[in-house]
């Protein structure tokens, strides 16, 4: 569980850094990374 939480925190910190223009810009990237790093 702690490793999953760390992975989630890292994932969303990276995504927030590239979310230029707002959250909608990173939705495809979020879906891709979610499917490969978290659930994959």
């Amino acid at each position, binding site marked *: 569980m702690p490793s999953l939480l760390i992975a989630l925190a890292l994932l969303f910190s990276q995504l927030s850094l*590239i*979310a*230029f223009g707002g959250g909608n810009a990173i939705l*495809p990237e979020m879906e891709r990374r979610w499917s490969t790093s978290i659930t994959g």
Partner: protein
Amino acid sequence: MTIALTETQAVRRHPSVAELFVGFLQLGLIGFGGVLPLARRMTVEQRRWLTGEEFTELLSLCQFLPGGNIINMSVAIGLKFRGMTGAFACALGLIAAPSTIVIALGVVYDRFQDDPHIRHLFAGLAAAAAALLVSTAIKIAAPLRNEPIGIAIASLCFVAIAVLRLLLLPTMLVLAPISALATLRFA
């Protein structure tokens, strides 16, 4: 004109930390599908914390920075009036209610996800969310309709992300300078 300006300045108020927190808490509670238009109405028209120009300037800055626009905006407004405490109060106020609701919904979903009614409910919500996204994309793309360079860059970006499944960061690092140069050269 002078009288109008004086009146505008006279009614402008500097909110306390509590007022900032409550204001953004209310925004978070009612901001289904996007908070920005409501944020402008609250901060400029109703509570007169900012002028329209100040709001637009802050919004421009926040759109340029990474992260959610409205989160950046809440931090900027809080910082402007009450420093770091105000910034935390605004950001916390904005995310408190939606976070609580989403966590509660997540718990409900986790418990009842096998129920066909809940599955249908979430399928319907997913369809509505997809439609909202398509609608936002059309609104964002509409101003580009008379700009062939903009359309070309947007199409390239779509192909790179949606079709070729390239990473967002390198795609942005390549396309942003090309877009800026092409606009400077041909616009």
